[in-house]
């Protein structure tokens, strides 16, 4: 639920000059109740949410396995470090569904999830109430050593961090003890790298997978050291060979100092190398390779997790080879174990996926995108692909936001109140919200919170905008909504099949793709339809009629743009002008030809430097010479770029530079102009239209 709220907070951050944007932007995302009132700020002292960090994760995970298996549904909620990486990536009315998806994709890729709230709900027929078990996982993309883990860099939106702070988010717990994770893809890559490294090592006939390090021993100190080591190792080898006769091995006479300690390594006599610099270790390796075929240098992780460096004596080549193999296998095993540990929080997601339970979230499209990117793999490029593949992993998802806005009975109950989670919770579940036992009349679904170890330090009283508590609220709202839909929990003595319930069918797997779209998307089919509850403020947009302008002077205001366009294209030509930020604007024309005309006109005007261009109504727009015009497809491309420049014009310019490199080789090959025009497929126009000015001008 903090997505809308963060955006609302963001409003105040929008400078006055941009205030006109606000009206068209996300206006129906209500400011969360707690910001204004304080309702739902806590559900009495009895409500507790278990805090899960690195220290108790393993034990919680074990309990969770049975809890999820027994659960009727699982409610989730996420807290992130931000929502939009730049102001122009906020949700606009002018966003086509594919553009909106790109914005959500960007958000999920850039920001980190810091809290994962999970609440299992199980119907207890004997008490005729739900048993809820809320958990609050602190997660942090900590970099595990030597494993290509989650991205090492993430963004924070200042307003979101301030928002988290406002609700007492514990940043220390998150960063100090947050649980790390690996996505499925990352795990696969890590395992693959490991296996190939292992094979390389085995295949290497020299049996040494350390990189060759040629150090010319030029320094006197190095030469002396090398000689000293040579003598030491020779003595030691002699003593090992003479073992039964020579009792030297009984004591530690290998060296007068602690640097060389006699030990046994996998039933082989060995010397532990302590306190050598990495440079000297390299010199030792060099000595061994050069003069001692039967002595082997190994570095292994010891019992106490410290790196041990050893020189091991082997009887023969075969013995050496088998020892090497054994060491390698040990390494492989421990590395695999490391990866398994690094998977961390994803075990929870794996559990949800394997149990195929009903997942309940409130306005959870962005949450799902985060889950996909963080725990499964890179996000697909198209929304259809994304939702279909989500449907495969999590086949049953219900969005309570959609449920409460599209059902008439509940809408009637909610009356005018806002559709935010906390307000829905206080309206639909007053008995839990106010924690008053007497109001537990039959119309309310009873929910009991289970705490297995009360008084433990891991428990904290639930607070709004804490993921665990939000997940709990979502589940309560869902349970109550089900009862309003006429689902009788009491009759289900056995495990109830909520996803299969006819009454829920029309709400299952229907999500809001974005908060200002007014559409819902069906996860099973990937189709987007207009939402029934949404009232359109604007007529349907013809995206082909929209031209994108950027790079104009900072003095230009929307009305200037409109005036310029009207002067030249006619009074009715412009339907609306919308500023993405202070450097870029959309112009919506009444005909799509005007978009092309504008691009041609701009180019002609720039080529002429005579009086016409000065007197032309557009001269003001083109002032400075950096103004660019493009069509809606370019906007999509610019949004799809992984860059995140703060100003739209910078982002657009950078995208153009990137694209040039892609276009350049093509234009070189097809030097004949007629060929260029004839081979112009749809995709060419889309991707290359910035360079199509010339083509358009040629026939003119």
């Amino acid at each position, binding site marked *: 639920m903090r997505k809308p709220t963060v955006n609302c907070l963001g409003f*105040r*951050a*929008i*400078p*006055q*000059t941009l205030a006109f944007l606000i009206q068209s932007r996300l206006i129906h995302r209500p400011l969360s109740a707690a910001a204004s009132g304080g309702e739902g700020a806590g559900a009495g002292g009895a409500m507790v949410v278990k805090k899960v960090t690195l220290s108790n994760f393993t034990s919680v995970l074990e309990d969770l396995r049975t809890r999820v298996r027994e659960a009727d549904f699982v409610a989730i909620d996420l807290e992130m*470090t*931000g929502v939009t*990486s*730049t*102001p122009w990536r906020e949700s606009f009315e002018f966003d086509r569904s594919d553009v909106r998806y790109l914005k959500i994709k960007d958000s999920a890729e850039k920001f*980190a999830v810091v809290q994962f709230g999970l609440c299992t709900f199980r119907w207890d027929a004997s008490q005729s109430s739900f048993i809820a078990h809320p958990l609050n996982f602190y997660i*942090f*993309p*900590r*970099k595990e*050593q*030597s494993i*290509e883990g*989650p*991205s*090492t*860099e*993430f*963004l*924070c*939106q*200042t*307003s979101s*961090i*301030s928002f*988290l*702070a406002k609700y007492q988010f*514990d*940043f*220390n717990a*998150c*960063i*100090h003890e947050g649980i790390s994770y690996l996505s499925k893809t990352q795990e696969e890559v890590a395992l693959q790298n490991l296996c190939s490294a292992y094979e390389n090592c085995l295949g290497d006939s020299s049996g040494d997978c350390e*990189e*060759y390090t040629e150090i010319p021993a*030029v320094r006197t*100190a190095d030469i002396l050291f090398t000689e000293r080591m040579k003598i030491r190792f020779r003595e030691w080898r002699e003593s090992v060979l003479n073992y039964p006769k020579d009792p030297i091995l009984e004591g530690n006479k290998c060296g007068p100092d602690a640097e060389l300690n006699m030990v046994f390594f996998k039933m082989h006599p060995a010397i532990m190398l302590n306190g050598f*610099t*990495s*440079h*000297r270790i390299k010199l030792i390796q060099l000595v061994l390779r050069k003069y001692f075929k039967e002595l082997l240098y190994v570095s292994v992780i010891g019992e106490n997790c410290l*790196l041990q460096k050893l020189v091991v004596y082997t009887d023969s080549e075969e013995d050496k080879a088998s020892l090497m193999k054994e060491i390698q296998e040990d390494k492989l095993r421990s590395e695999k174990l490391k990866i398994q540990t690094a998977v961390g929080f994803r075990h929870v997601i794996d559990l949800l996926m394997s149990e195929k339970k009903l997942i309940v979230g409130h306005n959870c499209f962005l949450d799902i995108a985060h889950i996909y990117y963080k725990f499964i793999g890179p996000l697909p490029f198209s929304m259809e692909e994304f939702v279909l593949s989500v449907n495969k992993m999590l086949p049953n998802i219900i969005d309570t936001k959609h449920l409460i806005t599209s059902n008439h009975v509940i809408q009637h109950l909610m009356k005018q109140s806002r559709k935010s989670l906390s307000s829905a919770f206080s309206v639909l579940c007053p008995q839990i919200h106010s924690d008053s036992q007497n109001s537990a009349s039959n119309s309310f679904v009873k929910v009991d919170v289970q705490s297995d170890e009360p008084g433990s330090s891991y428990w904290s009283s639930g607070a709004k905008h804490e993921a665990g508590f939000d997940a709990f609220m979502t589940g309560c709202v869902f349970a109550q909504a089900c009862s309003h839909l006429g689902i009788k929990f009491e009759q289900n003595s056995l495990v109830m099949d909520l996803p299969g319930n006819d009454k829920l069918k029309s709400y299952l797997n229907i999500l809001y793709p974005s908060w200002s779209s007014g559409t819902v998307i069906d996860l099973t089919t990937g189709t987007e339809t207009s939402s029934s509850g949404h009232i359109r403020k604007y007529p349907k947009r013809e995206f082909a009629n929209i031209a994108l302008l950027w790079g104009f002077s900072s003095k230009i205001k929307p009305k200037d743009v409109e005036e310029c366009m009207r002067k030249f294209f006619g009074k009715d030509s412009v339907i609306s002008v919308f500023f993405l930020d202070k450097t870029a604007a959309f112009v919506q024309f009444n005909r799509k030809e005007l978009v092309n005309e504008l691009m041609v006109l701009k180019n002609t005007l720039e080529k002429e430097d005579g009086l016409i261009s000065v007197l032309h109504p557009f001269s003001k727009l083109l002032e400075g010479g950096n103004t660019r015009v493009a069509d809606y497809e370019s906007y999509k491309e610019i949004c799809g*770029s*992984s*860059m*995140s420049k*703060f100003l739209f014009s910078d982002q657009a310019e*950078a995208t153009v*530079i*990137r694209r*040039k*490199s892609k276009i*350049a*080789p093509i234009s070189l090959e097809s030097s004949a102009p007629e060929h260029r025009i004839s081979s112009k497929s749809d995709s060419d126009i889309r991707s290359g239209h910035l360079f199509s000015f010339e083509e358009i001008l040629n026939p003119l």
Partner: protein
Amino acid sequence: MATITGRTSRSIGATVRQVTKSNFPAAIHQIKTDIEAADFVAVSTRKTGDSSASSASSSHHRPWRRILPIDTPETAYLKSKLAAGSFELLQFAVCPFSIRGSKVIALPYNFHLFPRDELSLGMPSYRFSCQTPFLSSMAREGFDFNACVYDGISYLSRVQESKARERNPSSSPSLHPFSSSQTASSVADSIFKERIKWRINHWRNAFKASTQEKDGSLAQTLRKLILGGEVYGSRPGMSIDICNEKQMHLVFEVVNQISDDLVVPIYIPHKFEGQPEAVRVVLAGSEDDKKELLAEIQDLEDEQNLKLRGFRQVIDLISSSHKTVVSHNCLHDFTFIHEKFLGPLPATLPEFMCSLRLLFDNVIDLNHLLKEIGPLGKGKNIPGALSYLRRQFFLPMELQVPRHDPQGSSSSHGKNVLSIAFLFSKLNRLLKTAPSGRTEPIEDFANIFHTASMTLLEPGDDDNDDDADAGLPMIDTAKRVGTDDILFLWGFRGATSAAELKARLFRIHPVFSKEFDVRIVDKTCAIAVFRNSGSAEALLKDITSVENLSGAFREMVVEGLRAARYDAYEKVCKIGLWEGDLADSLEVAMADSTEDSSYSLSGANTNEIHWNREMMIDLNEL
């Protein structure tokens, strides 16, 4: 008084004064006097990430974005610029210190920062980036992130402040309204002036008269109504309505001309729009009263400024004190300081150095100092350098930290700044007593930044400082190459290690038969370094003409082997193609034919930075 001698300087205890939002106003007064009294100011910062972060493992996502040994100062600057734009400052330690003989008297402060949008203007920062290894390494030191986010001090840069004033002008009265350019006065202006003069004089005289007569309260009220008089606090005042900035200046001019200087004009901006609305003329009772009034208004203004500038006030204090600023890794710290407290960073290093001079006269980079002072070259980090100095020289010095804040919170956070002050003092003394005839004052080292990459200490990273601590610094074999002998290579399939790639390249081309070396930059790109000048050029020539090639080299070229000169890399940094792998960015840079005139590095040269086209690169650091 906490006294720390050189031996125990590593374990400096809880002696750094911690400053958060709550005790900031008090600290700012204290630090002002401390800075004034000090000889030098040491600074050190903690950020959410850095261009120099080289974590232990090489699996960084975009390793080439870090400052690498192959970077020239110019490209290193561009990388620092990128970092300063993306990351945030979380702590800023300031330590005014003085050297008194063998004593170093230091007064360290550690400010906790957070770019909170205090004024709801979307400033100072909309979003920022965090590097997990950075945060994790801070967490291991016990860094309190909650303190930062909850109680961190916010700030605005100078550029942001003027933007903020433009957008959301202060509604508090001011003695010094913004001065706009004076335009020639017209007849209308003089009429306006005369009328204002008459009004003020009339009002003034009326008050003079009223103090003599003893009127009833009714008469006083009436007079107030007729004269348009009001009270400002306890003092009589009068509002003069104005409609533009020019009239405001005229009113100020008129008031200052009036011989009787008990009248004080105060600018009152409009509550919402910030347009000039009125000038209030206030009559002070006496000279002393006037002083009091002025002080009152000044305090209001200061408060407003502090609210707006936040932590930047400290930077401004250091700047206006004209003290020499000492830091380690200056390029990193000062690109941040410029970006966060002055304004957006300029496009080139020389411009940056000039711009920075506006803020600080003298900046000494310990990194550069260490590099310059002979055998210290190897001791890259501060503890390493300190321990080296301790072993090699007899420099008895004592670090004293007078406790100036008995009840305030102090801890060891930010103690790094003390080490900087201490190390600088030692080096300063070393330079003065050097027997080698090197008598240059330490100031000669000012304003030259060295671009070393810094290493994060991570557990298990035990090889880090071994060499320095072994007491046997590596002999500098002085394998240095110019940028002309470096080629970037990409499009080689399958090679994952430098040794492997080198083996594949060996002898496939005449230039690869002579002395050359290969280093991997990221997973897509490597550099080849040639000992013989001209080799790079020859290879580059051959790689473009496939038809003249034969054998294995031809095969590699056909498979997609590409090469680029160093300037392609410079261009990548210059136009900021930071996204993606280096090979992709190099492709883009080479395809982009637009050659803007500003992109010509050879012309840029200043005295401030030791820099030339043939930038030497230390191969040992690769």
